[in-house]
């Protein structure tokens, strides 16, 4: 069988008789990448794992003292950290829900014959390709209470979007929804176009209502792809740094990534921030695990 020849790692194989053996080529192709990732991702993480058990401060020359689990204990009992987590949870919820509603809604609207559909779809996808930090920053002007176009068009007189502690998180989430609803739209469109037409025809013959068709045919068939979009966006929203950092310095918008940044690079609590980074890391790896399981599941279909 052809495939057998191709995957054969026997050093005496035909191809290996001349040139490098398949085994050598495989190692030559794979090992540098793995090594690169280990050196620049895993090794640094081990380095910071070691620091997470110390009181090291990168701003001083004082040697690091071993403090055991003290950093972890302090962090987990610090009410401010818990408030960072709850702000993040709230942010993830608002922003991902918004993206799913807007994105899926757009996909439903686009899933029909529309003039210049390809061009419209590409234009709608543009925001997600742009830099969150640079374009996000410009929303400061759009949100400006005095001369921002948002207040002007919505007829809100001098409404404070970013200066109001309660509103700022929503304002940031709105920018995130603007940028990433197109991502949900893109994946939903793929899901919608894969729904077999004959199911809709059958539903029509059965005189099924529009709602029934949506909940019994459309949604269940799009669900796996929509789930990928939701998990991926949840993970990204959980890590949000750029957007919130350039738009607001309110304590009510201090997401986990921002707290971590301040702890590490403004307060220079290197040991403590390493421990914090580890807590965040474990959460991210957990979400990634779910995400990859889903990717493989959809791929297998």
């Amino acid at each position, binding site marked *: 069988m052809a495939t057998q020849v191709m*995957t054969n790692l026997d050093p005496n194989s035909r191809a290996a008789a001349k040139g490098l053996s398949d085994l050598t080529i495989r190692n030559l192709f794979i090992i540098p990448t793995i090594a690169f990732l280990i050196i620049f991702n895993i090794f640094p993480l081990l380095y910071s794992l070691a620091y997470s058990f110390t009181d090291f401060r990168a701003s001083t020359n004082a040697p690091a003292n071993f403090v055991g689990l003290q950093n972890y204990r302090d962090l987990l009992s610090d009410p401010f950290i818990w408030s960072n987590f709850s702000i993040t949870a709230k942010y993830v919820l608002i922003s991902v829900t918004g993206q799913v509603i807007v994105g899926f809604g757009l996909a439903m609207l686009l899933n029909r014959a*529309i003039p210049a559909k390809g061009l419209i779809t590409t234009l709608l996808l543009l925001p997600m390709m742009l830099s*969150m930090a640079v374009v996000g920053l410009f929303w400061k002007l759009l949100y400006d209470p005095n001369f921002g176009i948002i207040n*002007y068009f919505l007829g809100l007189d001098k409404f404070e979007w970013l200066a109001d502690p309660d509103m700022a998180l929503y304002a940031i989430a709105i920018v995130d929804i603007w940028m990433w609803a197109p991502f949900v739209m893109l994946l939903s469109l793929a899901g919608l176009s894969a729904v077999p037409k004959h199911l809709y025809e059958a539903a029509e013959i059965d005189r099924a209502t529009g709602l029934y068709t949506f909940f019994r045919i459309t949604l269940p068939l799009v669900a796996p792809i929509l789930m990928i979009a939701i998990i991926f966006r949840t993970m990204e929203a959980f890590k949000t740094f750029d957007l919130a950092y350039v738009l607001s310095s309110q304590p009510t918008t201090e997401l986990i990534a921002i707290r971590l940044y301040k702890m590490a690079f403004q307060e220079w609590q290197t040991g403590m921030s390493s421990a914090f980074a580890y807590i965040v890391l474990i959460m991210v790896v957990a979400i990634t695990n779910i995400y990859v399981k889903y990717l493989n599941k959809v791929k297998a279909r």
Partner: protein
Amino acid sequence: MAGVRTPKEKWTNRVAIIAVFVALAIMLTPIYWIASTSFKPRNLATTIPPTVVFEPTVSPFVKLFTKRSQLRDQPSVEEYNAAPWWERMVFDGGEKVVRNGKTGEVKSSGYGDRFTNSLIISIVSTVLAVSMGTLTAYGFSRFKVAGEDDWLFFILSTRMLPPVVVAIPMFLMYRVVGLNDTHLGLIILYTAFNISFAVWIMKGFIDEIPREYEEAALVDGYTRMQAFFKVVLPEALTGMAATAVFCFITAWNEYAFALIMTNRNAQTAPPYIPSQVGSGLPDWTVIAAGTLVFLIPVAIFTFLLRNHLLRGMSFGAIRK
């Protein structure tokens, strides 16, 4: 979709098309506003009601690339008339271009350098990530690797790490080896970040190339290496180009690593542009101009990439 038949369906369809255009207008307004603000004179950037119709000027772009200071006294008539058109624009805005005291050479703002840094760092890291990623993807696609799924998960998981988490130890290590605020430092970080993406996407593209092609080449007496370079690589070229564009955009847009690891010498545009807003009344026309120049390459690439967006954004899971 099923063809439109009943009057009711026709009606829904029309409403949907109108809704799509309304949504499109809303989605594009921020981008349009960036573009339009970058051609406004400063006094029209912040007006109520917003200025929509105006005489465009390139003065924001002149200001973007030059170093300026506030005018204390009005320039003399001779001085004004002797100045080139672009310098007069700066005078008109109540500022003057800063010149080198001895040579009279115009001093540039930091933007040009940051833009060049962004280009160098994004291009080099993209080339590295795509070439290493393609080789690794071929390895995983064609050969048996013990624990293949675990390795692929490991590779992907490195991309999912929050930048700040990785930046803490990297900052300390770079400080030891002197890589903070260097091009190489950022190139390494962006390569590491993009390699995992390149492996996943390229594996999908290479999986699609029939094994029979190489099989035939091997029978014809090619070595495995020759078969890879002469048969597989040409077939994978489209995929590599799409992957490269994705990697470039990711590196181009990256903010957190650049903010932490660089401050001057190797600083890229994303941390530089927000730093110009600073305190006081920012000149939004200049920020808009800087943003627009920065966005143009990405907008062009997005159009080139339009048929691969789905695949790229889903890490190759959904191919259409």
